[in-house]
């Protein structure tokens, strides 16, 4: 880690005011340090010279004033630095999260959600130290150390020389150790990440693990990752404590050298006590901020290790954004046939659906069929902009910039039900600006789910419903949206895969009724004959298309 990471400073710019305030406070604090040492040494020296309390009263009062000012400054410094750090962190957080949402589900599919959540949570928390402790101390060092050294120099140049000669050891040493710890620190961060992702993956699949008698064995894995994490953390700490030790030692010895040299020169009378005492009190202060920088350096480096992941996300987003920097056309076509020309999609360099032409007339009902894994869901994902596509998508004769144009034109129900914790009503009206109970009830009816209570509460990932119930609620959610936003196209991916024949028939009936009352174009991916039979036309995807 460099002492100053320019990328992080780029974001710290958001808190420029806080850095400037930090500098001002640092300046005032330095004045207090010098003042305190000066007045205290003066009082002691004059008292030894025989002055009484009465004569010393003004000096003591000044000392008290400095003490009060110093305390006030400490408080202000603490509050402004944490406030500034918090602001920078919140800003980074919301930037990362909105970057993730803009990168979208296609990008997310290849990543682990827990890992992304760990980056924005504990990862950015670790940057707290960087902004609230490390940077302010760095500023203070830049201000206080030269001033203090200068004051010492003016009073007694040999002492200043001693300080100046030892000071540079500290940053040099810090940089060396910084290099040495970088990889260890990265490893520690990775371990925390894998502890988190592994844990949630295991919790999510606990049912499966229990069924196969593997739950107990996972405990061993958690234990071993935690143990590795501890070992790695201790490795990091050992080095960082070592650097702390060197800093402390250098500064302690420098103070000791100053004290002894001052003492010796006092004995031969070449130096006055007032200067000697003053210099003695000031010498440690020259080292203090730098020592603090050293201590915070490693705590801050933790955050910087996590910051790499943050920048990876931000960089991915900015390159993705520049690639698709088209001006959004908000006046989307609202009706007409959906036409795909030369439409293809690929994962990386593995094409999944070869260029195909298809037309879905307005108000039509098309079933997409084909063997499992042929690319039906991929086609749908490409229509939603989750997967990149080639060729042209046109609605009502006008080309649509998938994703960039907004998604109001299309409503979608995925192959997984993807319900959220909350009530059925909240699920059905997801994304609605003004949730409407009557419309939600109608959507449930279309989806053959009218027996499900809108106020029923669902657990994590929609737990509490049977497979088929969850599927129908998820269909209702898409129907609600299509009705509320007047979408042109409603895409359902395997809507009846978890339904018995009777429910399926009711669903088909519901869809037929929906067609009669709207101009919605229905596109339904299905393996089931009953659904395919109800469609006007069938688009059968062939595995051959995969090879094309």
């Amino acid at each position, binding site marked *: 880690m460099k002492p100053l990471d320019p990328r992080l400073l780029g974001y710290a710019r958001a808190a420029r005011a806080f850095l400037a305030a930090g500098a001002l406070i640092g300046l005032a604090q330095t004045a207090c340090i010098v003042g305190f040492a000066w007045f205290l040494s003066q009082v002691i020296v004059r008292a030894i010279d025989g002055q009484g309390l009465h004569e010393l009263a003004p000096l003591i009062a000044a000392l*008290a004033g400095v003490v009060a000012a110093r305390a006030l400054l400490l408080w202000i410094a603490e509050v402004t630095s944490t406030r500034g750090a918090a602001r920078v962190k919140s800003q980074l957080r919301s930037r990362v999260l909105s970057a993730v949402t803009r990168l979208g589900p296609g990008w997310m599919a290849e990543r682990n959600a827990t890992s992304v959540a760990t980056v924005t949570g504990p990862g950015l928390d670790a940057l707290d130290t960087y902004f609230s402790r490390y940077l302010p101390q760095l500023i203070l060092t830049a201000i206080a150390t030269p001033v203090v050294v200068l004051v010492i120099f003016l009073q007694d140049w040999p002492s200043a020389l001693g300080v100046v000669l030892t000071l540079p050891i500290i940053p040099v040493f810090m940089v060396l150790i910084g290099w040495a710890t970088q990889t260890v620190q990265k490893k520690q961060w990775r371990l925390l990440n894998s502890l988190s992702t592994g844990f949630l993956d295991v919790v999510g699949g606990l049912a499966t693990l229990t069924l196969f008698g593997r739950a107990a064995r996972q405990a061993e894995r958690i234990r071993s990752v935690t143990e590795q994490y501890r070992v790695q953390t201790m490795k990091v700490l050992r080095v960082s404590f070592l650097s702390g030790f060197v800093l402390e030692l250098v500064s302690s010895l420098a103070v000791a050298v100053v004290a002894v040299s*001052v003492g010796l020169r006092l*004995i031969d009378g070449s130096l006055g006590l007032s200067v000697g005492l003053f210099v003695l009190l000031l010498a440690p202060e020259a080292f203090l901020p730098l020592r603090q920088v050293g201590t915070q350096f490693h705590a801050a480096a933790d955050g910087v290790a996590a910051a790499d992941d943050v920048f990876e996300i931000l960089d991915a987003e900015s390159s993705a954004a520049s690639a698709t920097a088209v001006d959004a056309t908000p006046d989307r076509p609202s009706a007409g046939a959906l036409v795909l020309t030369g439409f293809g999609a690929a994962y990386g360099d593995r094409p999944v659906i070869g260029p195909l032409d298809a037309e879905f007339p307005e108000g039509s009902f098309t079933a997409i069929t084909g063997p499992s894994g042929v690319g039906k869901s991929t086609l749908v994902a490409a229509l939603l902009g989750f997967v990149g596509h080639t060729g042209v998508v046109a609605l009502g004769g006008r080309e649509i910039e998938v994703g960039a144009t907004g998604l109001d034109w299309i409503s979608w129900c995925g192959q997984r039900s993807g319900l959220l914790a909350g009530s059925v009503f909240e699920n059905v009206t997801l994304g609605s600006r003004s949730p409407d109970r009557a419309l939600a009830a109608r959507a449930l009816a279309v989806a053959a789910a009218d027996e499900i209570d809108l106020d029923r509460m669902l657990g994590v990932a929609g737990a509490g419903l049977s497979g088929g119930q969850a599927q129908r609620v998820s269909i209702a959610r898409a129907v609600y949206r299509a009705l509320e936003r007047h979408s042109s196209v409603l895409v359902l991916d395997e809507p009846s895969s978890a339904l018995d024949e009777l429910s399926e028939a009711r669903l088909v009936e519901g869809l037929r009724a929906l067609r009669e009352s709207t101009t919605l174009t229905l596109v339904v991916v299905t393996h089931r004959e009953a659904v395919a039979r109800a469609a006007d036309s069938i688009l059968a995807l062939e595995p051959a298309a995969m090879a094309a």
Partner: protein
Amino acid sequence: MRTTEILRLAQPGARRFAPGALLGLLSALCAVGLLATSAYLITRAAEMPPILYLNMAIVGVRAFALGRAGFRYAERLASHDAAFRTLATLRVGIYERLVPIAPDGLTGTRRGDLLTRLTADVDELQNLPLRVVQPLLVSGAVAATSVITVWILLPPAGLALLIALVLAALVGTAANGLIAARAERSIAPLRGAFADEVLDTVVNLDVLTAFDATGSRLAAVERADARLTRAVLSSAAGTGVATGILSVLAGAASIAALLVGIPALGTAGFDGPVLAIIALVPIAVFEVISSVPLALSALRQVRSSAERIGSAVPEIVPPEIPTDRAADARRTVDPANAVIELRGVSASWPHESSPAIREIDLTVSPGDRILVTGPSGSGKTTLAHVLVRFLEFEGSYRLGGVDARSLPLAEVRRTIGLSEQTPYLFDESIRQNLLFARDDASDDELIAVLERVGLSEWLDQRGGLDARVGERGSLVSGGQAQRIALARALLADFPILVLDEPTANVDPGRADALLRDLLSASADPDGRRAVVIISHLPVPAELITARLRLG
């Protein structure tokens, strides 16, 4: 787990803890000693005595300087190592308490919150020895030593230092508590809530994007972040006030020493150098005890984290979740004689008022192929959960001739396998996802079982068993995920296999072939395996031996 129990676990035992505390004390005493001796050295030197008189002080200054740094290094290593050792136990403990109630007792447990309990909250506990116990012990000892030393040099100055120290501890702690106590107790839960919001957003990104709900989700995340930030800032304000108060009192102690010391100058044994000592010692002592007001604030955060760890898992297991309590640990089921007999079995989900299945009768003997049908929501999956003992039942359920309650849960699950309706794939390679069903399976066996479910061609396309399937199978198609799960269940070779909608996401041609393979005798040469299949798709009558219709 109770909070006190967790705190006891977090505090290392005396043998581990003592070295760190002792080294910390030595280092702190050295810091005070360094300042005192250097002040003495210089003021005494100003009287220009023969250098001989100062040798002791010169040696002392150097020794204290070395000691302060050296002891501090050793102390930090010792105390951190001790603090970390117990954390592994706590983390594994959280997981182990989850296992018995999974999956049906965990539907209300928010994942992000659970994760912060495992990571951030457990990490917080290390502050108990590091920021609470040790600082209090060391500060107390250093303060006492310093007060006594100063008292010997000049009693009123000792008294002044004592008063300043007591005031600092009391006022600092009180002021800090007043400003920050509430916020500090709320930090840990707010952190959990924040993680929850973030995880919810990221996990459901596809749905949220498709429904234009990312904006409102991000707003919710930002609100959670703002609440957390407010709490953190309040805590910082408390810290700032405590630091400020301490700094004032440190100055006041020095000034008080001057006020009582200066008039006393020249009296018996009290001279300039001693005045310097009593005026400067407070500076060093206060640096050491500055951790006291913050110790209580750390304790508040540690306690709230400990409470959260304790309540990570619902304390009371709902009666609908089976436990091993009534089981006889040695009892086993003979695979050759694994017969299921249900008589009048009913079962309910936790927190539901009415049972999801009522009065079910079912017999499954070796070699049987039983088809379970019924409308959506009629209780087919519920029945499967009863069979593998995820859910408790009423009525009579005998397995291998004995009451299922008397069998250890693990034994029931060794006998009866279940391929779930919504299978879970782990964010690992295909191989790992299969291997945990039978970890001694060779690659050839894995490929063979994938061939059985029709995935061998796809496997080649993906570059073999090392291909990743993504989080919850995000990199494979719906039907492929289901078939990987099916392959897993086949691999494990259970005497009785329950298949919950095994072909729901598969095309009709493939589904038919799969059903024939699963249900025909050829799949199982000695004809001993029993299969209970839950299906909405029509199953050829010749493949099954009996049916059960629910609802």
